[in-house]
């Protein structure tokens, strides 16, 4: 999509009233075990996604290890001194999966997995995977196809869409925060940048900033820059205030860069910063050399700190509104080099959090059926994960994601809920909200089981979620929308069997 199309579609989105918006969650064919459960309703407040970029290309084969595969050891264990395999006896075994396990340094992740808080998505990739770090990272952050150069990020476009293109007001919290050395397009929208690039220790700039009024072109630019600078300062003040409200970290962490980022993000979240997206860049996963030492150290460093981060949020009760997704630009070659591995293709992705539907998704790539470049074949497109997060976590109508945020439609994975009959009712178009627009009351047609627990949530364009009082009637739910301000909302109905989405337009009373 080009910029003009986006603006056009944004305009139409803000005027047209959507009808029934369906979220058909496809029953996922591949077996996944673990604790399949419906996420508890979130606390009032913003839902948060923390993307952790493992820079360099993480070796998927040695992350989720196919320890029962002879082929794995045949290829990876070239000779005693060139052993790029993980010994079967050291692998941390996964419940319900006989032939795969976690790398021995991933015990913190395995611990979270055993509590049902980790979705392991196997064999993630995309068509014509690009093995350049730069290009690969751009594709992952922009969610574009390999052949298309898109200079905006999927998260930036999401913010542009949910905020209707507006920027945060002065004094409001930044929409998104990015930290690290190698920044990307992740938080750039089509028209402006939504990420605040945070430097740890940066404080408000209190010196007077002279701006000179004038009427020429340069004065216009100067004025805009002054606005950006004020916005930066305003963001820094908001962040400092949040950090001040949560002064300390309670978990051990370590002294690595990723730990310092996660510690800061945890304090921001616990301090009540309303920022929805955090993108953290770090890592040395480009293990061409000394892979065994470097990879072990990096996995340990990343996931021990992520574990501590998750635990800290659990202590404060913020865990129900935070999801963590570590991603890497590609996996690595099956066949090792002298002391490491080359850039490869498919690798597992993790989605971590208390609300995540933990378990294994997809099947591990075959070690014998490789692609033409001797690389692993991918099975799940990374944008399926993005679409699942957009739809199930941020409650964005998949039709909007398909039209505006992603190159096309990508089937969702049930990362946060289970495929259910309720979804199928919805997919068949039987759920209708009426009257639309509404003011104090409205109804959704839905047949609930007698006494079935349910909850209705409305999420506004800023991502804020409100619980809506509802009463079950025959074939319908009556909603009390009197507490909602006028505006467009995404409506989510959760039941013990699943969830459906709908849209809601509240008009002035």
């Amino acid at each position, binding site marked *: 999509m080009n910029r003009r199309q986006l603006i056009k579609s944004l305009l139409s989105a803000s005027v047209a009233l959507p009808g029934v918006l369906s979220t058909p969650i496809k029953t996922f064919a591949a077996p996944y075990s673990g604790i399949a459960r419906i996420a508890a309703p979130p606390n009032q407040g913003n839902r948060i996604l923390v993307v952790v970029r493992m820079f360099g290309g993480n070796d998927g084969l040695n992350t989720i290890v196919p320890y029962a595969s002879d082929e794995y050891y045949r290829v990876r264990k070239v000779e005693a001194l060139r052993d790029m395999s993980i010994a079967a006896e050291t692998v941390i075994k996964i419940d319900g999966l006989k032939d795969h396990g976690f790398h021995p340094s991933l015990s913190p992740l395995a611990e979270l997995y055993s509590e049902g808080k980790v979705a392991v998505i196997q064999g993630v990739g995309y068509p014509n995977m690009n*093995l350049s770090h730069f290009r690969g990272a751009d594709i992952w952050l922009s969610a574009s196809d390999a052949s298309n*150069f898109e200079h905006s990020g999927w998260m930036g476009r999401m913010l542009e869409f949910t905020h209707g293109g507006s920027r945060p007001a002065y004094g409001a919290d930044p929409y998104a925060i990015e930290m690290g050395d190698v920044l990307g397009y992740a938080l750039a929208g089509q028209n402006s940048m939504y990420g605040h690039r945070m430097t740890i220790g*940066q404080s408000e700039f209190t010196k007077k900033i002279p701006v000179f009024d004038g009427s020429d072109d340069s004065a216009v630019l100067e004025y805009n820059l002054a606005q950006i600078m004020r916005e930066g300062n305003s963001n*820094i003040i908001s962040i400092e205030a949040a950090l001040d409200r949560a002064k300390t970290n309670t978990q051990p962490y370590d002294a690595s860069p990723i730990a310092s980022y996660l510690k800061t993000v945890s304090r921001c979240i616990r301090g009540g910063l309303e920022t929805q997206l955090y993108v953290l860049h770090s890592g040395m996963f480009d293990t061409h050399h000394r892979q065994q030492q470097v990879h072990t150290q990096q996995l340990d460093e990343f996931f021990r700190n992520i574990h501590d981060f998750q635990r800290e949020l659990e202590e404060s009760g913020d865990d129900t509104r935070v999801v963590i997704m570590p991603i890497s630009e590609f996996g690595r070659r099956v066949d090792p080099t002298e002391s490491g591995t080359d850039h490869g293709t498919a690798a597992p992705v993790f989605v971590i959090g208390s609300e995540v539907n933990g378990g294994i998704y997809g099947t591990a790539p075959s070690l014998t059926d490789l692609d033409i470049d001797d690389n692993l074949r991918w099975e799940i497109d990374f944008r399926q994960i993005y679409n699942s997060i957009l739809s199930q976590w941020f409650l964005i109508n998949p039709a909007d994601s398909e039209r505006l945020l992603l190159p096309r439609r990508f089937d969702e994975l049930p990362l946060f809920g289970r495929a259910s009959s309720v979804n199928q009712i919805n997919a068949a178009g039987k759920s209708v909200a009426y009257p639309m627009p509404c003011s104090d009351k409205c109804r959704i047609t839905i047949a609930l089981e007698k006494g079935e627990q349910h909850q209705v949530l409305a999420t506004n364009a800023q991502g804020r979620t409100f619980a809506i009082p509802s009463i079950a009637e025959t074939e319908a739910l009556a909603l009390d929308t009197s507490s909602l301000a006028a505006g467009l909302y995404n409506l989510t109905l959760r039941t013990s069997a699943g969830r459906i989405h709908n849209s809601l337009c509240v008009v002035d009373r």
Partner: protein
Amino acid sequence: MIEKFKNDGSDPWSMDHAAHLMRRAMIGVRIDEVEAAYADGLYMTVDQMLAPWNMSFQRIEKYRTGDVQAWVTPIDHPYWEVFFKDKDLRYTDTVQWLCQEVANAPASILPKLLMGWHSALPISLNGAQFTEHCLDYINILFENGSGDALKLLREVSTGVAMGIFLNGVDSFWNSGRDGVNENHARELLELHATGVYDLDGKANYTQADIKAMAYSMSGWKLNEWLRPNADGSTSLMRSRNLIFEKTWWDPRQKTIFGETSTWNRDDVLNLVFSKKKRNIAEKICRRLYREYVNDKEDVAFIKEMVQVLEQNNFQMKPVLKALFTSAHFFDAKNRMTMVVTPFEYMISIIRRYKVDYIPDFHDSDARAQDDLVLRLRNFEHCPFYPPHVAGWTNGMDWLDGSRMIMRAETGYAIALGNLKFRNYNGRPVYTYNPDEILESLGINNDALEYARRVGISYLGFSDKDPRNEAFVNECKTAIEKSPTIHSVRTIHSVLQTTVRVNLC
């Protein structure tokens, strides 16, 4: 025909014009240089600025010749650690050398042009693996940056650095075994030579062209061999050029831009340079326009630039000269409407204030002190570390709230001479001699006169503009508030915190 700037009654050559020219054409112009340009007039100044730039290679001389030691085995040999550490130090050395040369350069368009080409045809130290290849690449930019555009493109494309950076050396076709990588073929057209579309919005090539080019360009590889060392280790050695391995090349018939033959890499370059001449000329002129005139392209003017480039057989000096002496370049809408890059921001401070102590340049153990390099990396604008195969961003994309504040904080601290660098606690660095600045301008005791000239040369205010008066008043107030600080330092602290210092 490009309309020339006329030094006539309505808009005569002035300090404003001289300052605009110098701010745009170079990195960190000084007031004395603006005043000299005003005295010399437009044409003499432009000729002088196009003169060769005598870069010093002394600091990195040892990397400029000889074969490259690309690897050491076994990795548990003590020499391996030595080699690896040295590799990182060489990287830093190379970046520091380039920064130092740009900061020490005379009033020339070439440093900024060099940085522009580095962004347009980027490679990275990490991506291109090894200082030597990057230096060979910089040498190509240095020698051809204002010369023959086609030679520049050809030499960069066939160099080792680009070969590695864009996977050209991993692209092979061996008896039908397909290991062809399209990366270089695609970027050669899309980013380097033609762009995807021409000035009228027509596609310059097809995906089939890219594919055929990629197959044609296969067969080139690194020239490497093993060398046993006296200490029992083995070095992987590499020459500074790529070699052609015929059995790695796809000899089949391929169709590029409608012509079919058993093309090879050199044929591809010849085809691009002959069949896509107009597209290349447009791409180059657009790039120069966006580098020097305005982010928003003026298609009519760029078409006139294209004519000049074509008439001069792709020699770029005549185009640059025509550009800098055009009426369009001096148009009010093109003044102070471009954003200074972070690299330019940092180097400008160093150059303007004649900063006499920077750890990266001046420590005896400078190899271990990389304060400036780290700052540039924090700004995401460190030479040889592009974020992307498409080089660095430009214009407003450089400026977000956080980095605007980083700029102001850094500039403010250097202005007052109290930036501390990481390893030597409390030691003021990035410092300079404020009296020398006044002396060099012959205004020993007149700080406010200095402020006035700063406003004209660095902030782009004309002398009569009330905004310059406002700037001088800001400085005056600040000086009165801080009587113990040298007034020149105070003026610089005001200057570096203006929003406008980010524009040129």
